[in-house]
């Protein structure tokens, strides 16, 4: 088959990825009850016949966002995989050919045509809507692949659609063997914001999650600092007796020996005091080359942090930098710095 990879990918638009697939169970009260409980959805129209009628329905209706749940294949079948359609196989081959082995779900749009009632039988088909031209993103170079799932009832009427957009990309740098690239929220300048992807509906085999960054060893002397980081506040410990700022923090003031302290929030402005560019060894939790700097804050204390959005060979000692945040994982946010004047809005 001729044409560039982009042309061949874009030629898939309109092709059917998943042929009509029927839900294993009709819309039913037990599944709705479990869903509503798990989601904390207390709307009585999903659980109580009278309440539903009082609200103008003919009876209990399923939660709208449960649409995609009805046609899920279940855990075992998802893990085991199954035969792919010709278009799906073609897409997989093209992605592999282009080295577009990494994936991140960027967003999903749902439209609902009508509410589902007990006894409805639902089917789904999935087609390729579009493939973008090649895009360079902070994660890597690749294509946004948009697919549309169309949900129908037993009469063939459309009850809802789901537009699903994935970035399929070549990682910026090769990942260590056995690890998957995972986006770092602050790393993306061009990448569209990553929506909350629901792994159960992601049409990809589960990839091994990226190892987490090393955990800080927290205790009564330093936990406050890391907790504030989760709120994106960079704190500096201050002796309340003599006013001396200190970092790394400790229980006692080395200047006046007071055990009393509070904190001040750093302005977030500083300059590069020294820095290193790490190449080896490559630890899977990080991208390399990895820049780590000692930053001297405007307040006078120094701290170690990553520099982001700057080419290593443009970094200079004395370069002004401003605070940024890395949300490494739900338990760990860390300060980082970018060159002053390149702040994101």
């Amino acid at each position, binding site marked *: 088959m001729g044409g560039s990879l982009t042309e061949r990918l874009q030629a898939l638009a309109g092709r059917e990825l998943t042929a009509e697939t029927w839900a294993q169970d009709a819309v039913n009260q037990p599944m709705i009850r479990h869903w509503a409980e798990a989601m904390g959805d207390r709307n009585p129209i999903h659980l109580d016949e009278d309440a539903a009628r009082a609200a103008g329905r003919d009876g209990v209706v399923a939660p709208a966002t449960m649409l995609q749940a009805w046609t899920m294949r279940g855990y075992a079948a998802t893990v085991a995989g199954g035969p792919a359609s010709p278009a799906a196989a073609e897409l997989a081959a093209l992605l592999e050919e282009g080295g577009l082995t990494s994936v991140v779900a960027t967003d999903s749009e749902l439209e609902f045509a009508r509410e589902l009632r007990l006894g409805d039988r639902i089917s789904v088909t999935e087609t390729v809507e579009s493939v973008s031209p090649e895009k360079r993103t902070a994660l890597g170079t690749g294509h946004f692949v948009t697919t549309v799932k169309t949900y129908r009832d037993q009469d063939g009427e459309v009850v809802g659609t789901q537009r699903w957009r994935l970035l399929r990309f070549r990682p910026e740098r090769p990942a260590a063997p056995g690890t998957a690239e995972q986006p770092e929220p602050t790393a993306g300048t061009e990448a569209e914001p990553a929506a909350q992807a629901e792994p159960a509906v992601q049409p990809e085999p589960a990839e091994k999650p990226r190892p987490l960054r*090393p955990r800080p*060893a927290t205790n009564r002397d330093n936990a406050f600092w890391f907790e504030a980081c989760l709120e994106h506040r960079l704190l500096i410990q201050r002796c309340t007796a003599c006013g001396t700022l200190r970092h790394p923090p400790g229980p006692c003031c080395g200047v006046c020996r007071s055990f009393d302290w509070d904190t001040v929030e750093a302005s977030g402005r500083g300059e590069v005091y020294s820095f290193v560019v*790490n*190449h080896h060894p490559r630890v899977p939790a990080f991208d390399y080359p990895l820049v*780590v700097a000692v930053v001297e804050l405007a307040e006078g204390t120094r701290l*170690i942090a990553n520099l982001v959005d700057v080419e*290593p060979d443009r970094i200079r000692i004395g370069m002004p930098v401003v605070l940024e945040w890395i949300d490494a994982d739900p338990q760990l946010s860390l300060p980082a710095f970018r060159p002053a004047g390149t702040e994101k809005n």
Partner: protein
Amino acid sequence: MASSPTSPLSGAAAIVGIGATEFSKDSGRSELQLACEAVLAALDDAGIGPEEVDGLTTFTMEGNPEIAVARSCGIGELSFFSRVGYGGGAACATVQQAAMAVATGAAQVVVCYRAFNERSGERFGTGMQDRPMASTADRAQYSWFTPFGLLTPAQWVAMFARRYMHRYGATGDDFGRVAVVARKHAANNPAAWFHGRPITLEDHRNSRWIAEPLRLLDCCQETDGGQALVVVSAERARDLRHKPAIVRAAAQGSGEDQQMMTSYYRPDITGIPEMGLVGRQLYAQSGLTPNDVQAAVLYDHFTPLVLPQLEELGFCKPGEAKDFIADGHLELGGRLPSNTHGGQIGEAYLHGVNGIAEGVRLIRGTSYNQPEDVHNVLVTAGTAVPTSALILGAE
């Protein structure tokens, strides 16, 4: 100009035996076996039986307990045992501990040892990436750098090196010259891992980045092996088979605002103040000056920190070490022939203890790269951590 020693420690004890295993990348034996082989070899060199040993010293990041070494080597009762903290910075402190024990009568024969499989076993250079975390202050200090990916000794040292280059205009070549001299000396030392394999400055320039500004050839090796030293009183030393290496001075130092490998919060980070503190003590204890020192063994886990050692110890002024080295003063025939065994870059990385053994050989006159007229040798321990050093001298 030398004056009288001021410390009762100066001249009280001597190193009378040195012993090591081969230095390899895969010893094929347990770490305890390496320790026993080294201890017994050092005792054999001294001509002292294991049953006479009543003291053992080592330092942290050592996997072999003193009691296991004593039991395995048939040493019997111990009246003195000491394990100094902070890893490689404590290498020379083991001799200080031994000398103090001998000087006070706490022990008569003390063996200092280091043995490990740091290449074939748990690799040392990988740093903190997968070490378990706990909430002790000892572990909590790592919280300020490991989450950011600043994980390995090379990376920690690179931060100092960058600032030193910025302040004094030193270049990668200035670091490279340290490695070239070490490998030149190692090439002539049959015990060295890099025996017969010298490098050029061009090789250094072409070696890959590890942690900029450090290249591969700025880094020492990881070694499997063991090294031990035997310390007795200077008086007893006179009756033994080798020319004794008298402990003229032995000192430890921890600087103000000291951190483990990351003392980045001091007003200036281009010096090694803890080494300055050690140097002042060495000269005060012994009554010697830098001019009385003819050779040195300078801890070279990474080349950049050799430069400020020369400055802190008074061999040149701050910022001038690069010129001192470029002028060839670390080589045979230079002002201060250094790391004549090949250093840890060229011989082996026994966390400094093999360097102390080379200091003993320099006093004995048996180095494979022996300079002429060596009366006093200065030996340093690990830098960027609380550290220690010795001056060994001839009778």
